[in-house]
């Protein structure tokens, strides 16, 4: 069934229409946002990875900028 319009006088004060609309819509949006569950779902904990053995000091790259330059050059 069609909802009948309120046949009110043009002069009649109807300022509450927007407030009523806001009340309804706010409630609806609040419900919808809640149902969306905006918080990121907790990811399952990955299995603990084996720790990488500590690199002996002798293997630590100390001259990084030059190596990076070479790598970039080779990739071109």
């Amino acid at each position, binding site marked *: 069934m*069609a909802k009948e319009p309120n046949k009110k006088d043009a002069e009649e004060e109807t300022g509450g229409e927007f407030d*009523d*609309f806001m009340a309804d819509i706010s409630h*609806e*949006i609040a419900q919808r946002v809640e*149902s969306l569950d905006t918080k990121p779902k907790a990811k399952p904990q990955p299995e603990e990875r084996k720790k990488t053995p500590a690199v002996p000091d002798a293997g630590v790259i100390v001259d990084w900028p030059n190596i990076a330059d070479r790598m970039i050059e080779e990739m071109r």
Partner: protein
Amino acid sequence: MSVVNYGTREITCKIVYYGPGRSGKTTNLQHIYSKLPEERKGKMVSLATETDRTLFFDFLPLDLGTISGFATRFQLYTVPGQVYYAATRKLVLQGVDGVVFVADSQSRQLAENIESLQDLHANLAEEGLDPRTLPLVMQYNKRDLPAGEISPIEELDETLNFRDVPYFSAIAVNGGGVFETLRSVASLVLSRLSAPAVGEA
């Protein structure tokens, strides 16, 4: 159109008032605008011809404030009803989230209502939108005219509302049925926020 943006925490809904020329689309927006509290009144953009018909479109941004942490905006548009503004109608429909079809209840306007509805469906399809699933509300306007000049609601509904969507009789010129229609289409649009929007933005 993305209606919910988690990045910026915004909800934006685009609602288009569609229908034949002089059916009362602009009058709907004018009534809504007239009832907005001052602090929420943006600018209603309305471009009309010399004969006062909508030339391009009307645009009414409706800032509802922050609701549940989301800045919520409804953007209300009308299309020009006259047949020769087909390109504008297509443009306005881009990214639409919901449609209010404003039908003129006058019996002699029935053919125009049907033509406009067909035009809506064709334009939606061109936009890649499914006219069978897009939120849609019918409004049968001008119910204040003499009974001899207007079609009964049942007849209008049987002819135009084949999707069996919510429908409202209205007297937009004095505001009757205007907010009821808006509330209904807004509700339909909001009900679709969930599925496609999760994970976006």
